[in-house]
């Protein structure tokens, strides 16, 4: 009965109700997007860091992984020290460098990483074979496109270009053994991976036994925090960064987006709330006589309150339904814009859909819908019945 009356009241002014639902839908879409934005980057980045099971990263002291050109000397000794800890199962040293493909007059520049292919956590081979042999490498599609090389081709790779001498420090003929997808690199960046020893040798004495980063996998059940503390005590020339710390630093750097999400989400909720409150208040004002008649007939205050709250809730729920679908579309659009951030790994999503985000947005909208009905329902329930009937009759 209450629901029937609420629906009848909403369908009486269809254009007005449709506009209100549309307004709530846009606010709901924005709210969902902002809830997704506030947690999406963190979740997405965390998932990326943990995707290969490495929970600690070692970088040169005072730096973040690959934030500078700094490297760590004595790489093999560090690996030996770390693997003595029973809580550490895998240590993957990584050296970063710029390589040039030297084929005739063409020069293609790419980012290169030197790894131990058997334990690396930087890429996944999609076609062909891993770079297990010393003079072989895997590369991404961008590299293959830029150089026109195909799996099986042999290319001349060089490092250490000196602009003054116009000469390279080290050159090596290497076989393009497979196509790989690099997990932490940005879209459009040509990249290759080759055995660590090969890349170190190409860099000459400057790169001998050096690494830019170590990735550490911890035994299941062991506490990464205690392993991290042990590493920092044992190898004081490195910064050991746990996934939790890395996420905290990302949070700090991207605080702007999180705060913006909070503000815009709050504004969206307020706009939706005001819209529903205004509409239902005007609707109550227009049928004040009708409500007075209902009260005079013996219909309880609670019944009137329920009917009006049901009206505001119906608008909020219908708007939320449309808005959540609209929000997914706009999130995709906005994510497409932010995905073109330079240097951002392809796998990072700013707007990550999680059921929790949708439930949070829906919960907030339902709560706001109920609150939006409080003022008009209180107004309707506290009408002086006799006076209202007399005034309505005179009018």
């Amino acid at each position, binding site marked *: 009965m209450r629901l029937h009356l609420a629906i009848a009241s909403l369908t009486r*002014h269809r*254009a*007005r109700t449709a*506009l*209100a639902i*549309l*307004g709530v839908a*846009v*606010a709901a*879409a*924005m709210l969902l997007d902002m809830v997704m934005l506030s947690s999406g980057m963190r979740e997405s980045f965390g998932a990326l860091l943990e995707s290969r099971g490495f929970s600690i990263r070692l970088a040169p*002291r*005072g730096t973040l992984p690959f934030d500078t050109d700094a490297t760590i000397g004595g790489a093999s000794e560090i690996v030996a020290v770390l693997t003595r800890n029973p809580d550490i199962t895998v240590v993957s040293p990584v050296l970063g460098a710029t390589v040039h493909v030297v084929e005739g007059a063409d020069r293609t520049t790419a980012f290169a990483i030197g790894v131990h292919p058997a334990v690396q956590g930087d890429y996944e081979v999609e076609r062909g074979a891993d770079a297990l042999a010393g003079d072989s490498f895997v590369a991404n599609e961008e590299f293959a496109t830029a150089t026109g090389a195909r799996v099986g081709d042999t290319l001349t790779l060089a490092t250490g270009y*000196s*602009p*003054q*001498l*116009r000469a390279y420090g080290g050159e090596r003929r290497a076989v393009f053994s497979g196509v790989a997808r690099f997990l932490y690199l940005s879209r459009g960046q040509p990249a290759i991976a080759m055995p660590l020893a090969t890349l170190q040798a190409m860099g000459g004495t400057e790169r001998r036994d050096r690494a830019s980063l170590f990735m550490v996998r911890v035994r299941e059940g062991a506490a990464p925090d205690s392993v991290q503390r042990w590493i920092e005590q044992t190898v004081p*020339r490195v910064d050991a960064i746990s996934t939790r710390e890395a996420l905290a630093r990302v949070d*700090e*750097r991207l*605080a*702007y987006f999180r705060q913006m999400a909070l503000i*815009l989400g709050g504004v*969206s909720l307020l*706009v939706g709330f*005001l*819209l529903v409150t*205004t*509409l239902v208040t*005007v609707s109550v*004002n*227009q049928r004040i006589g009708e409500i007075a008649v209902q009260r005079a007939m013996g219909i309880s205050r609670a019944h009137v309150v329920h009917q009006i709250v049901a009206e505001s809730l119906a608008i909020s729920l219908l708007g939320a339904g449309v808005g959540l679908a609209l929000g997914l579309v*706009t999130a995709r*659009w*906005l994510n497409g*814009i*932010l995905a*073109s*951030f*330079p240097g951002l790994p392809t796998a990072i999503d700013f707007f990550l859909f999680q059921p929790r985000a949708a439930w949070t947005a829906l919960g907030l909208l339902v709560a706001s819908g109920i609150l939006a009905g409080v003022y008009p329902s209180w107004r309707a329930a506290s009408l002086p019945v006799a006076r209202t009937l007399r005034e309505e009759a005179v*009018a």
Partner: protein
Amino acid sequence: MVSLGLALALQGTTRTIAIDERLATDASLHVGDRVVVASTPGAAGDTVIVGAILSRRADPSEIARDEYRVRLHLDHLQELIGYGDRVDRFAVATRDSSGAERARTAINDVAFGFRAHRSRDVAIETSQTFRVVSRFHRAIGVITIVASAIFLLCILLLKVDERRRDVAALRLLGLSRRTVLGAVVLEAAFVALVGSLVGTAIGALASAAVNAYYQAHYRTPLRFSIVTPDIIALAALLSILLGIAAGTLAALRLVRARPLALMGR
């Protein structure tokens, strides 16, 4: 800009450096203090005197980097990091913009191992991050405008609809449909104009709050939010146009109805 003192003259063999105000604040350093600078953590380095404290520029590329800046004399830095007689780049000033292009071409014709670029081209290349943020802000702006437009339409429709008995009375008094329509539309436009003025004031206050918060948070003089006459004009124009459109739509429905029907008879 040097905000505190000028670089001190060399005191004996001790060199001077300039540090930024963020480092000065965090490390409680003052002009005249002695510090050790080294190229790697833990290395012996050089003892130097803080000769000047520099204030931060309003550079958007610096805000996300919570880092410190130290300026040394070129030969000092080259010596400290073992860089030899090398530099990363040269900045070249020319008399005018056409001179810049001629100089760039001339340098590149004789360059051996380096390239000359115009500052404008370098700025475009390095401002990609801010162009992405700017596009994102514009997209959020479009969604906000759509939401505001619907809100405004809804409110004005309700506002005009509330006047149905007044409109009926005016029509019964003999006023033409045209006059009533004009009056209602004018009222809607006035409400929209007043609303946009109040909105502009709220927007200016919000903008000031945003600037105050983020300037303190990132410790930068950069202005994050700017309310320009163009933005005010766009908001006011959009609001008035939407107000007139909503007012016209609602008023047309009212004046087409019979006055007695509007009275509920």
